[in-house]
């Protein structure tokens, strides 16, 4: 080729020389042209050499790059590089070298990407499990960054181990959750709660029977809390149920409840000592069931309360019976009544009251035992007294010897009675001495129906003495009369019947009869007690030697008179409560008031402030005007309580209105008021019957209460719920 080119170049030169020759170019020109040619050729050569040089450098660079990459991959994968180039043992040209290295790189790249995929897989798995454990809701990040610089097998192994650990934890957690759920389920069924609802409240996934369950920290924690809560509820309910069971058993025991009735609650009572884990029956601790048991317990308790009440009342009756039999006054009668009331209202435990009453009964029984001997003697004495009074009556009967039916029996009785009466003084003596010893021994008074026996005996002796005296007086009188009679007889020859004196005798006796009773009244104090017709345990007890019946009647009469006085003051209390107390018209007042209960006019004047006239004239005036025949009797029969006591009572009445309630009911119902009708146009409505006013029916019952004790309120204030800010006693203003 060069030769060919040289030929072409030589031929071209030859052609140029021919041209030049023909043109006639100078030699200088020819030389310049040839130099130019030579320079241009040089230029072309240089360019080509540069190009080749550059290409070679590129090649070298590529090889170096490839080698570097290879080295990097190898180091990342933790492998020794397969290809180590021995620069001095270069096998061939650069191009061959490059060709040799490229496939190796390819291979290494592929392996790297495989390894990377493995990493990603493992990391993803780890992330997923971590998410499940630490995050309660779904994936948070899906971006897994793989560290490209370390893809070694060692690292991979590490990751695998981590993954395994996580997987283990996950399964453990799952197990735990399932355990929790199981426990929850049993709890819920025992407590009668809805399991699904409870569980769904913690995490919705837990309620589903299949499918994955949430195992996050949060869920487990909440499950724990829920379990704790349910356990607390369970324990609490269990205790409640066991308490109930205990009371059930107690009540059954106490009241001998039949087995059939118990059977229904057997499963409650059999759990009485169970521990928390042992109670597994579904619904055993549900609120409904507990309420059901509770209702049963309260039913039984009510039953018990009523039975206790019955028992208390029975015991109370027993106590009263014993007291009655032994003529004892139950000491704290009102206290027991109060206690019974308290039991009924539920304020006090019945058993306590029962105990008290029991105690009292035993005490009374003991006392009764010690009284027995004396009581027997008292009975004997009483019957003797009865016989005595009978005998008295009998002796007064002038027809006693008339032979009628049964006369012989009476005669016999009289005979016996006389014998008995003769023994009476001795009887009284022994009784007195016995009683005195008893009293000394015991240090208390021997009472008979509330009256001291010794005073009764004393009364009896006094009476007997009086009677004796009277008898003597009568005998003397009789003697005198007989003397007179004989004188008369001597004069006129006739003898009047001794019957004449009968009425006088009676009168005296009657007036005497009231004596002991009045004493008793002044002792007893409260007048209100006395007007009761059924009062006389006293009348019975006082061994009057007189006709018992008559004495009683007289007593009542006397009492009624007393009642009048008391009543009149009470009435005045009603009418004049507020009138100034310092007025001097009390006597006048009395006079008016004595008439007022009997003939109370609707518009009768109350009083004037100081008409301090003498009472006597007023009374008389009043008496004359109102010609009521009861009035003189009221005044004459009992003059002492009339003047003084009523005055004091009036004072008392005026001060404490409460005491007022007492005399009012005692108003004798027999007295009627004809006068009112004459004065008032419509008698039916206007008549003010002095029948006992039922104060309980008075609507304004609160107003009756003492101002000093309680603040009174008007209806309006009560309705408006108005209460005084501070309660302080209201002092009734005294003018």
């Amino acid at each position, binding site marked *: 080729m060069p030769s060919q080119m040289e030929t072409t170049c030589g031929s071209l030169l030859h052609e140029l020389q021919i041209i030049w020759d023909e043109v006639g170019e100078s030699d200088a020109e020819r030389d310049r042209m040839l130099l130019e040619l030579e320079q241009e050729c040089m230029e072309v050569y240089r360019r080509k050499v540069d190009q080749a040089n550059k290409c070679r450098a590129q090649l070298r660079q590529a090889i170096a790059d490839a080698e570097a990459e290879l080295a990097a991959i190898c180091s990342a994968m933790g492998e020794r590089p397969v290809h180590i180039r021995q620069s001095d043992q270069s096998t061939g040209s650069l191009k061959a070298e490059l060709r040799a290295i490229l496939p190796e790189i390819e291979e290494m790249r592929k392996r790297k990407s495989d390894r990377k995929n493995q990493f990603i897989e493992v990391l993803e798995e780890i992330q997923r499990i971590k998410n499940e454990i630490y995050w309660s809701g779904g994936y948070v990040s899906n971006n897994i960054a793989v560290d490209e610089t370390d893809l070694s097998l060692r690292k991979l192994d590490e990751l695998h181990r981590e993954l395994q650990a996580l997987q283990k934890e996950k399964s453990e957690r799952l197990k735990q959750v399932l355990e929790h759920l199981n426990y929850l389920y049993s709890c819920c069924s025992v407590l009668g709660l809805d399991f699904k609802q409870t569980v769904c409240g913690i995490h919705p996934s837990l309620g589903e029977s299949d499918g994955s369950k949430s195992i996050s920290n949060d869920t487990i924690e909440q499950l724990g809390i829920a379990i704790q809560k349910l356990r607390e509820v369970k324990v609490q309910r269990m205790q409640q149920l066991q308490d109930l069971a205990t009371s059930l058993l107690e009540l059954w025991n106490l009241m001998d409840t039949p087995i059939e009735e118990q059977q229904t609650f057997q499963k409650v009572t059999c759990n009485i000592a169970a521990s928390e884990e042992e109670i597994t029956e579904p619904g055993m601790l549900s609120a409904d069931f507990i309420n059901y048991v509770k209702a049963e317990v309260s039913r039984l308790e009510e039953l018990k309360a009523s039975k206790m009440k019955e028992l208390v009342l029975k015991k109370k009756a027993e106590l009263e019976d014993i007291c009655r039999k032994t003529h004892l006054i139950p000491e704290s009668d009102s206290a027991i009544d109060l206690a019974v009331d308290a039991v009924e209202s539920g304020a006090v435990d019945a058993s306590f009251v029962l105990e008290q009453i029991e105690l009292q009964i035993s005490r009374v029984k003991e006392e009764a035992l010690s009284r027995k001997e004396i009581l027997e003697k008292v009975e004997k004495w009483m019957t003797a007294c009865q016989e005595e009074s009978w005998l008295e009556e009998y002796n007064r009967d002038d027809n006693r010897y008339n032979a009628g039916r049964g006369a012989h029996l009476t005669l016999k009785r009289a005979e016996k009675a006389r014998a008995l009466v003769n023994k009476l003084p001795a009887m009284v003596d022994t009784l007195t001495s016995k009683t005195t010893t008893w009293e000394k021994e015991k240090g208390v008074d021997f009472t008979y129906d509330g009256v001291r026996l010794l005073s009764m005996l004393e009364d009896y002796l006094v009476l007997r003495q009086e009677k004796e005296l009277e008898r003597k007086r009568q005998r003397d009188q009789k003697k005198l009369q007989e003397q007179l009679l004989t004188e008369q007889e001597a004069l006129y020859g006739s003898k009047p019947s001794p019957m004449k004196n009968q009425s006088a005798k009676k009168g005296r006796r009657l007036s005497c009869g009231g004596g002991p009773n009045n004493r008793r009244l002044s002792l007893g104090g409260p007048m209100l007690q006395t007007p009761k017709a059924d009062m006389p345990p006293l009348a019975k007890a006082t061994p009057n030697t007189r006709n018992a019946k008559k004495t009683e009647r007289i007593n009542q009469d006397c009492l009624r008179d007393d009642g009048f006085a008391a009543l009149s003051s009470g009435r005045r*209390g*009603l*009418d*004049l*409560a*507020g*009138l*100034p107390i310092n007025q001097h018209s009390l006597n006048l007042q009395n006079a008016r008031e004595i008439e007022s209960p009997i003939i109370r*006019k*609707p*518009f*009768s*004047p*109350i009083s*004037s*402030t*100081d*008409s301090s006239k003498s009472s006597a004239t007023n009374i008389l005036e009043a008496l004359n*005007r109102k010609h009521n025949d009861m009035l003189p009797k009221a005044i004459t029969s009992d003059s002492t309580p009339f003047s003084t006591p009523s005055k004091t009572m009036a004072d008392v009445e005026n001060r404490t*209105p409460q005491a*007022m309630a007492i005399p009012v009911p005692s108003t004798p*119902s027999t007295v009627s008021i004809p006068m009112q009708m*004459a*004065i*008032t*146009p*419509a008698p039916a*409505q*206007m*008549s*003010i*019957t002095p*029948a*006992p*006013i*039922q104060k309980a*029916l*008075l*609507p*304004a019952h609160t*107003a*009756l209460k003492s*101002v000093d004790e309680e*603040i*009174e*309120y*008007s*209806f*309006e*204030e*009560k*309705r*408006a719920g*108005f209460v*005084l800010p501070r309660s302080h006693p*209201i002092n*009734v*203003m005294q*003018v």
Partner: protein
Amino acid sequence: MTAPPPPPSTGRELSSPPTDGISNLRFSNHSDHLLVSSWDKSVRLYDASANALRGEFMHGGPVLDCCFHDDSSGFSACADHTVRRLVFNYNREDVLGRHDAPVRCVEYSYGTGQVITGSWDKTLKCWDPRGASGQERSLVGTYSQPERVYSLSLVGNRLVVATAGRHVNVYDLRNMSQPEQRRESSLKYQTRCVRCYPNGTGYALSSVEGRVAMEFFDLSEAGQSKKYAFKCHRKSEAGRDIVYPVNAIAFHPIYGTFATGGCDGYVNVWDGNNKKRLYQYTKYPTSIAALSFSRDGRLLAVASSYTYEEGDKDHEPDAIFVRSVNEVEVKPKPKALPNPAT
């Protein structure tokens, strides 16, 4: 008895009565208008002759009393402690002032132009209704009482104040600094109502225990000798006396006789001078809470309304009856038996 047979009816019942207990009612001094206060927190104005409701005011609490100012305005005493002036034409109400507790009663004195109120805060207050609204300007004076004020009555310049604890204070309106007389009720039980005689010589006072005392202002012996008390509003049943509170007393403006109303549902008319009962009207359905004669005495308004004497219980509906009064029912009859005492 010469009394004619009682009219069959209890009088004409007003339509649209208050819906709760009636605390008081009063006729106007100028017309037949009737002012009614009630526990339903209202004050109502009726035209009694036309049987029409003319106005209604609602308050913040039960209204315990009301009275007329002139024909076009009035005053109310309310349980919300407030005293109000009510102007009927404009349906307007001004607060006159306040007490420290529910205001129990209110009276207007034509003589002094003052409103007098009594309250459960144990004071009496006088107000000038012409003063601009605002307690500082309308309040004339406060006068402490021994107890909660239950009833007030005015005649001329005399003011009688009845309180709890059975106190009675008599004032002269021209000198309110001191009571002219301090008295204690002659009756033993809580005072329900006090009303002055139209002739100005004394007052009648009723208690919860079916009794009315007739008292006189004159403190001389002769004056005081005239006073007396009598029982009324009682019922005898099966031998027991049932005693009813006497809630209301109303004097006839012309004859000076008076009517009493009790919780037994009866209205009785009495002649105090001759100590006689003149008339008893047929029984009303429930307790008589208030009574008022019209200015000429031809009409008698009767509030038949349970007064809570037995606490909260079922009771007949509250009603207002307006009856025309026959002269024979209220005119004194001195010709009957002369009283031996006087």
